[in-house]
């Protein structure tokens, strides 16, 4: 179960978005993609999800080029929690979670396996309480959990999440991160685009730092989140320290003075 990106390059017309990206993602690890706005984070995730076709190189799952895989086969292994928490109709939460089973469904209705996976996903995210409530009538935190349950219901090997914390209060953000972390403990690979450096240093096993379309640095938190890297990529003056309890924390002092 390996997800790899080899010499990947992507451009819209003349504009180069990603250039020569090489990464091997590990199952059972929480990989966080960091980088300023426009660094190419979402594009990289979309290439991994098989939504965009890179012009150069490829993204592959167990050696098979993701963009060439049959969409249903791909969807049984790789799931995406898209940006923006889009939901268009007022369907019940449970029906929304059931959408995650679409790649597995053969006949007209859900099988026993499907029902079990839906139940497990809703219980893992503590969303059974509003199974029958329309998604449009959920709070932001509830909806984020239901949308994540939709991904979990797919029983995937890889979960890709594009800014899963956007517009959530800190408590709900921690809920989502804890849920994603629990997936890695179960042996799944999680790749998430995050904006919040504080959360990245707390939860990531592996960090990719993108800068202007290139992979500026990758590795463990201590390797990547260095004052020099943060100053160069984000233009901020920050450093890592361990608090009294031994948890890695990040302190951001301000913009770098030139």
């Amino acid at each position: 179960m390996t997800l790899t990106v080899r010499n990947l390059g992507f451009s819209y017309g003349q504009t180069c978005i990603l250039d020569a990206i090489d990464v091997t993602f590990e199952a059972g690890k929480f990989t966080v993609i960091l980088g300023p706005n426009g660094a190419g984070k979402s594009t990289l995730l979309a290439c991994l999800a098989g939504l965009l076709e890179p012009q150069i190189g490829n993204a592959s799952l167990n050696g098979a080029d993701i963009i060439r895989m049959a969409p249903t086969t791909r969807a049984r292994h790789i799931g995406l929690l898209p940006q923006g928490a889009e939901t268009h109709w007022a369907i019940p939460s449970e029906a929304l979670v059931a959408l995650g089973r679409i790649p597995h469904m053969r006949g007209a209705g859900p099988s026993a396996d499907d029902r079990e996976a839906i139940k497990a996903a809703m219980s893992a995210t503590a969303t059974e309480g509003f199974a029958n409530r329309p998604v449009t009538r959920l709070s932001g935190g509830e909806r984020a959990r239901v949308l994540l349950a939709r991904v979990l219901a797919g029983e995937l090997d890889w979960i890709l999440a594009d800014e899963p914390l956007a517009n959530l209060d800190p408590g709900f953000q921690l809920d989502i991160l804890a849920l994603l972390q629990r997936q890695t403990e179960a042996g799944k690979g999680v790749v998430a685009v995050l904006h919040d450096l504080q959360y990245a240093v707390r939860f990531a096993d592996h960090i990719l730092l993108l800068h202007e379309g290139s992979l500026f640095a990758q590795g463990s938190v201590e390797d990547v989140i260095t004052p020099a890297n943060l100053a160069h990529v984000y233009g901020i003056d920050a450093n890592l320290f361990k608090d009294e309890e031994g948890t890695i924390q990040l302190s951001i002092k301000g913009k770098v003075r030139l």
Partner: protein
Amino acid sequence: MNTRSLTSFLLLLTLAAFLLSLMAGKVWIWPTSWAADNADGWIFLELRLPRALLGLCIGAVLGLSGAVLQGYLRNPLADPTVLGVSASAALGGVGAIYLGLNLLPFGLFACAMLGAGSSILLLLVISRNGGPIGFILGGMVLSTLAGALTAFVISIAPNPFAASEIINWLMGALTDRLMADVATALPFMALGVALLFSTGRALDALTLGENGARSLGINLVRLQWIIVLGVGLAVGASVAVSGVVGFVGLIIPHLIRAIYGEQPSQILLPSALGGAILTLVADSLLRLLPGPSEVRLGIAMAVLGAPFFLLLLLRYRRGNV
């Protein structure tokens, strides 16, 4: 009531509406005289039966097309009339009559279906990324353009008889259609309906937006072509045989959603049944209205549909559609 018994109830209502349409009129024809070898029997076979069958089919086609288009565009205001699909099918048909292609076998049908299908493609091109209102505006542009071109073709019609023939057909009615017309339209409609029914799961997936649907393995390009072909065949054939009967596809999915909930795949069959019921009942009631001549179905549906659309638009502006 659960979904299954609700649908059984709708099926019964559809059957009742069909029977009503077979019987109702200036002359009531009871089932006892359906097989009779007299005037009543002939009226039944030659007039009522094709009319009721047409009402059933075009109502179902329009209700279903509305439900599919609304699900696909994730826009509760979409419908073959609002999006200009019906008007474009009509333009295709009028063009066929003007060029004499309607004298060829399937000429009128082919042109109407071509008009309907290409209008959706055009709409997708001009309204992509335009948001919910973008599609409605794009549809308005298409509808206006198709209307103007239709008027132009009528104005250059070679003789008054041709012009009146075109206008008569355009206004939308189920009257005076032959069993042969029904038999010609039916296979196209059936194929279109089958294609449209196959989209349920993909429409459900689109609840999560385009990226969400694609990540679930849905091929959106294929879905788009199925819908273009399905709506083209179904709506094109229904316009070819009965002119423009509007707004069924707008009104029905809304009523159905209020009962069945909003999951796109769940409202497909009920919307088809609801469309058939509305069309059959409206057509039967028009026959019963006193007066020298009948009000045309197309006109009646427009009178009913336009205020309904306005109501939806007002609700939409307040953000609760």
